[in-house]
């Protein structure tokens, strides 16, 4: 393939020579200014988790309005995450407030949720900003974030309800031993945050296009379920099913070495 005298999209180059693409993008790791790197009009071929220098990050220059929208959306999402973590504590605090109990009852769990929620909001904001720099399509960010927010809202409230409601003896025993209940509360919310973060990153990774198996076979690029099923079918001797289940692609995936280059065509014979 000759590139002389023509504008070659980065994705084409990355497709042809993955090691070159990796070198090209290593200079602009995620978190830096993507505009500093080489820019073309093409969408990136693949996005990788932030910090992975192997991802192609070139994307068209965004307008000021788009950047403002990205900032605002990331901030709104962070606030939504904060609210999802804080909601169960506010519900508990509301019962105490409505019950006319003086003193600090309920404020400790609110304080714990504020700390956990603020921390998670910062992490979520940073994740979103990072994904905005690497995503092949903006919709992938929003879809992944929506899924993460659903998991966060459900787990932050349900975990508390299930653990406090179904295991009263255990947490009463904890309280009896003098361990503040707020530690249990914060621990549950941290679990919820971890679940949400894992969901967001997994869904985003799943939605993003991955390099074809024969072009890149680095850690983190796994065969699909269909390919694994094909391999299994082949091992079990179900040869009819194997090709339909992607066995041949799996075989390619398992041998990432590039195919030997074809000898140049004999131009004289063609002429």
């Amino acid at each position: 393939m000759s590139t002389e005298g023509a504008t070659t999209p980065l994705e084409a180059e990355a497709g042809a020579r993955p090691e070159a693409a990796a070198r090209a993008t290593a200079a602009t790791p995620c978190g830096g200014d993507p505009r500093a790197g080489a820019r073309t009009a093409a969408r990136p071929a693949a996005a990788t988790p932030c910090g992975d220098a192997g991802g192609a990050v070139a994307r068209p220059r965004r307008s000021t309005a788009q950047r403002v929208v990205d900032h605002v959306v990331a901030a709104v999402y962070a606030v939504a995450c904060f609210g999802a973590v804080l909601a169960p504590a506010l519900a508990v605090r509301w019962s105490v407030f409505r019950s006319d109990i003086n003193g600090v009852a309920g404020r400790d769990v609110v304080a714990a949720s504020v700390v956990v929620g603020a921390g998670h909001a910062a992490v979520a904001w940073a994740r979103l900003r990072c994904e905005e720099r690497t995503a092949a399509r903006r919709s992938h960010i929003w879809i992944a974030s929506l899924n993460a927010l659903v998991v966060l809202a459900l787990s932050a409230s349900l975990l508390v309800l299930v653990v406090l409601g179904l295991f009263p003896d255990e947490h009463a025993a904890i309280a009896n031993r003098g361990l503040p209940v707020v530690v249990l509360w914060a621990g549950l919310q941290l679990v919820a945050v971890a679940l949400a973060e894992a969901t967001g990153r997994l869904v985003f990774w799943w939605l993003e296009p991955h390099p074809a198996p024969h072009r890149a076979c680095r850690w983190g690029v796994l065969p699909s379920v269909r390919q694994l099923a094909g391999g299994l079918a082949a091992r079990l001797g179900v040869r009819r099913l194997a090709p339909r289940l992607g066995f041949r692609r799996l075989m390619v995936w398992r041998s990432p070495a590039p195919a030997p280059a074809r000898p140049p065509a004999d131009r004289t014979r063609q002429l």
Partner: protein
Amino acid sequence: MNRREFLAAGLGVAGTAAAGFTLARGVWPVLAEEDLVPGEAPDVRLRPQAWETTDERVSFAAIGDNGSGGRQAMAVAERMAETYRSRPFGLVALLGDICYYGNFADRYHDVFRRPMTPLIDAGVQFELAIGNHDAELHHSDEGLAQIEAELRLLGTPGRYYRTTHGPADFFYLDSSTPGVFGDAASDQLEWLDDELASSTNQWKIVALHHPPYSSGHHGSTPGFDEVLEPILTRHHVDLVLAGHDHDYERTHPIDGITYVVSGGGCKTTPVGHSDFTAVADSTLQFLHVDIVGDRLVGTSIRPDGSVVDTFTLRAREGR
């Protein structure tokens, strides 16, 4: 939009709808209504036997639905102990549901012993009218075993019984469905009829879990007006104490009987107003009652010490 995007977006949208419905209708209201966060037991030391009970005088407290062992239950229990300091009482009438979220035998220390330790150490006596959360509604073998465990742990003589303290006779009933409407219900109702007829004390007080009159979440118990109320009216009962609805309510006298719901022992539910309602408030509280001669003064007290309601009853003429 490719297949993955469609699937993930669909899951996200469906999840948002499901999560919003589940949280708004199920989870957050439960967290706001229940008393799930464990509380610290009241650290109060009381002077033992500080009350005075004579033929003319008795003081007692009544509390229902206090079996969570949570912060709100502890706050009410602490207020009871503080009230004992200034207005000592020798009896607590438990109006049922003394154990939520588990078996009473397992949770005895968490839901009863720890919050009531100051009063127990002061020698205060506890008498229980069993509630629907203390056993299953229809008295399965497991439910009956739990009732028996409760009665044994609290030293209560049976599912329904009568006690006398000073000038007042107390009649504790099993107001569950089998207790009032089941095959063996006639035993309890005949017993109540006989005991009320034989009572010659100045005050007749009936304690049960399900309220004959209520404007709260559960409302008035259906069927009580046909089965129970004629007996209470015939024998000129003065005061009926109940729980079940997590609020405080007092009715205007109905056929001479004042009905009080004192079910704010650890959680609250909304309460409305009916024709028979004199006072209604959705709040944590317990009821303190002083009987001196022919006058009964009841005071409903919140955990912060403020008063929800105070009422005075006069003994019926001829007693």
